[in-house]
């Protein structure tokens, strides 16, 4: 069973490296959106540092939305999604592998470019670490939540906008807790409690979301 998990992850990664633009474009988008804010608001470092958590998290949300399109689309079109449903391994497990691979390809790169953004928005080092940790815990939750939305809308012709309408309201708690944690770090307060809350949400999402994703895929494919 674990073998199947690894195989799916491996297949996803190989496929992504063959089509690198799929990974690079959302990251590129993320960086551009964050760059637009200083251009629109002004370059006062204090102001930028004040609004940086919100900017980065909203941009991460939007970038995540962009990347979801490819999550199940190809599998849906070429029929391998149906194969997954017929496979001896439980669908929830296979779906978890897909989401994990998706996070490796989209969440992780956001983490990797976050130091660059910290420099752009003149964040202090302590604030940056808070940002990094919230992204580390928060982006997997986004991937899981978004996968539910993708699974629900995949069979629809105009699923893209609908996906954002469904998913963005549900991701509000992550946005709130993450930016609160980063704010706390800016003021030199402890933010362990907020990280723990995010962690609890991640654990909840990991246990519950695969079932929702699997059920949604069964609806969309039938």
């Amino acid at each position, binding site marked *: 069973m674990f073998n199947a998990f690894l195989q799916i992850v491996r297949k996803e990664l190989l496929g992504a490296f063959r089509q690198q633009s799929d990974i690079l474009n959302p990251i590129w988008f993320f960086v551009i959106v964050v760059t637009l804010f200083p251009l629109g608001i002004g370059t006062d470092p204090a102001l930028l540092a004040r609004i940086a958590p919100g900017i980065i998290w909203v941009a991460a949300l939007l970038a995540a939305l962009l990347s979801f399109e490819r999550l199940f689309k190809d599998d849906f079109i070429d029929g391998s999604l149906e194969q997954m449903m017929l496979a001896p391994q439980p669908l929830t497990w296979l779906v978890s592998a897909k989401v994990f691979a998706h996070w490796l390809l989209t969440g992780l790169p956001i983490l990797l470019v976050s130091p660059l953004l910290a420099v752009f928005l003149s964040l202090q080092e302590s604030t940056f670490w808070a940002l990094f940790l919230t992204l580390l815990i928060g982006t997997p939750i986004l991937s899981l939540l978004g996968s539910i939305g993708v699974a629900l809308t995949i069979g629809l012709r105009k699923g893209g906008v609908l996906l954002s*309408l469904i998913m963005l309201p549900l991701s509000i*708690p992550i946005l709130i807790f993450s930016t609160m944690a980063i704010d706390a770090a800016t003021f030199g307060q402890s933010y362990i409690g907020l990280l723990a809350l995010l962690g609890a949400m991640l654990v909840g999402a990991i246990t519950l979301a695969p079932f929702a994703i699997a*059920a949604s895929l069964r609806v969309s494919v039938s």
Partner: protein
Amino acid sequence: MWKWLHPYAKAEKSYALSGKLMPWFLAVALPTFVVGIIWGLAFAPADYQQGDSFRIIYIHVPAAMMAMGAYSTMAIAAFIGLVWQIRLAEMTVAATAPIGAVYTFIALFTGAAWGKPMWGAWWVWDARLTSELILLFVYLGIIALYNAFSDKVLAGRAASILTLVGVINLPIIHFSVVWWNTLHQGATITKFDQPSMATDMLVPLLIMIVSFAAFLGFMVLYRFRNEILQRESHRPWVIALVQQSSSSVNKRG
């Protein structure tokens, strides 16, 4: 055990049963509405702090409560529909969502109209108003998803799944918004909290809550019947129903 029941007979029976129940809900909703609204608007004493503007409470609070009530109905129906695979329950989800959205909109709008004289602004990022706004987004998402599917059986199931995902999320959203709010504007006193209300003020409020709940029930049944009719429009019992109604119209005309 439900699965073995004949699905079409069940739909027809549910249609008849909900038709029988509807007048009762209306019989509760209309008198309570008239009594509650007259009592609230004309007879309840004015609030000593907020004056007569507090009379908006008689629609704001019932609408907000029943917006949540509608969502709980949907969540229970979605759970039943998904676990025991009952299509009628999934239809209930679809039937309830628009009513919940309208109630949420009313709660939001009246909150804003109340906030303008009290806070001096139409919109304040008050925890309760913000939660209601997000609830409205969730409702609209469910409705949009339901309408996007052309196959209404699949649509009902998809909407049910989204409803259940939302029901896990909504408490977290509410909790996070309340916390976020205390952090960002801790000084604001929530005007909607009435620690101790005079009986003269409270009784009409309770009457209005009953009225909103009964009206919710009435509308859910009405829309539920619409859903059944639409999906079963090729069944003989629906055709018989249509012929009956058209012949009675012809006789009158």
